[in-house]
């Protein structure tokens, strides 16, 4: 009796070990449910595509991991990472000191500048003095929001949005005077006939608040996974797969600051 019990126990233990080692190769990637073209957008059939979903697929191929996407609101990505609902966030997350206090990042996999967008007919100098008394729209919980809050918070009114598209809509209807957003995301949107009254008002200066490129976020202390991601990202760059994916979505090189 004792023997059978022991054997059963051993079997359970072994099964347990086997299942955990299997589970280690299952990775859940968090993705913001707000579409953010061309980085990530959803089809009517429910499939995600864009630069980042393709990067996720490519990275997982290199790591030989079984990956799945978990959709949630942008605000909830870092909390979900911390509470182990997802293992990696590879979703336009800029590497900032503030975020580095709560999560760890891989090496950056792209760089982007922040761009001011305003009404074509309005003369706007995007300096704190030039935007005095103006209304600035930014997406909340972003590096743009942190930048605007620090330098423009005292003299201008800042409005926070959940969604890039809501700011553009308010910009068109004049409820916001100017917006600060990701250059790679908003520049293509300016070609849309709906936005013909909008124009670029210049690129924001480099600032530590914009972070040091965009990297994949992992839980603090999860160095093994971070290293695996770094190796995978490096090998994608080395053999040109990264460039192939990039070409499909962006005209210019985004792997370094110009």
């Amino acid at each position, binding site marked *: 009796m004792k023997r059978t019990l022991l054997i059963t126990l051993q079997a359970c233990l072994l099964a347990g070990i086997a299942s955990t080692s299997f589970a280690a190769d299952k990775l859940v990637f968090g993705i913001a*449910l707000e*579409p953010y073209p061309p980085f990530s957008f959803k089809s*009517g*059939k429910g499939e995600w595509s864009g630069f980042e979903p393709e990067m996720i697929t490519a990275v997982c191929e290199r790591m030989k991991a079984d990956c799945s996407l978990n959709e949630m*609101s942008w605000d909830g990505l870092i909390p979900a990472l911390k509470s*182990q*609902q997802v293992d990696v966030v590879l979703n336009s997350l800029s590497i900032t000191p503030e975020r580095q206090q709560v999560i760890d990042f891989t090496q950056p996999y792209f760089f982007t500048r922040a761009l001011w967008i305003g009404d074509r007919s309005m003369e706007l100098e995007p300096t704190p003095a030039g935007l005095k008394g103006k209304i600035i729209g930014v997406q909340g919980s972003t590096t743009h929001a942190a930048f605007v809050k620090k330098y423009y918070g005292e003299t201008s009114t800042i409005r926070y949005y959940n*969604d890039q598209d809501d700011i553009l809509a308010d910009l068109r209807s004049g409820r916001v005077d100017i917006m600060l957003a990701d250059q790679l995301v908003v520049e293509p949107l300016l070609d849309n006939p709906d936005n013909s009254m909008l124009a670029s008002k210049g690129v924001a200066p480099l600032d530590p608040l914009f972070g040091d490129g965009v990297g994949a976020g992992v839980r603090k202390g999860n160095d093994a996974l971070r290293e695996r991601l770094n190796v995978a990202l490096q090998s994608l760059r080395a053999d040109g797969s990264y460039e192939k994916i990039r070409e499909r979505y962006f005209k210019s090189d985004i792997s370094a600051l110009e």
Partner: protein
Amino acid sequence: MTLSDISRLFFSDGWLQALAQGMVKTLGISLGAFVLGLAIGLVVAMVKLKGPRWMVVCANCYTTLYRAVPELLLILLLYYAGADLINLTLAAFGQPSVEINGFMAAVVVLGIVQGAYSGEIIRGSIESIPHGQIEAARAYGISRSLLVRRVILPCMLPFAIAGLSNLWLVLVKESALISVVGYSELLTAGRQAAASTKHYLLFYLAVAAFYYLITLVSSSVFRRVEVRFERWMPRHA
């Protein structure tokens, strides 16, 4: 935009199906929350009418608190703080943290809010039962649980049904608030469709049409239920 554009967006691009899936989720959340709310409401009503004093105080606190605080705030509180609390408790016992399932969280959060409202509706309805009917049942020596099942509940329903059907319709719309925590119900599906295709007006109107459809169908269901439950009631007219 032409009709062929619209049909392409809805049919070949599959957004109609995405919205329909969103609607199924909205209905799922609403139904779950409604049932949970009814269960909580029934307990609260019973406690308020017959419970010991300290339980009555608790029940009063619950209904006042949850009807006073905006639902959106409660959802944020229960979803984020609730998840943290569960994981902290688990961590205190040395257990790994759990993933908060979006559907369950939505049902529990909305159900708890609904419980406060339906508790008051049910309490009022039970108090509307002519007391003689309950006394008559007691005079026959009927057991307590049988009294509830055979007398109080059937007699209460005609009074409660109008209030409850109202509550259901409010709940369906309230389920849209769950979109703030990123559960992909009907409104979230509509927002994603609008943002991905840049056809805002079209998809927001489509979402409105879906909510209208839910209301239309549930109104007719409730009308039938009402007729059935009121069949013992004296008819005036």
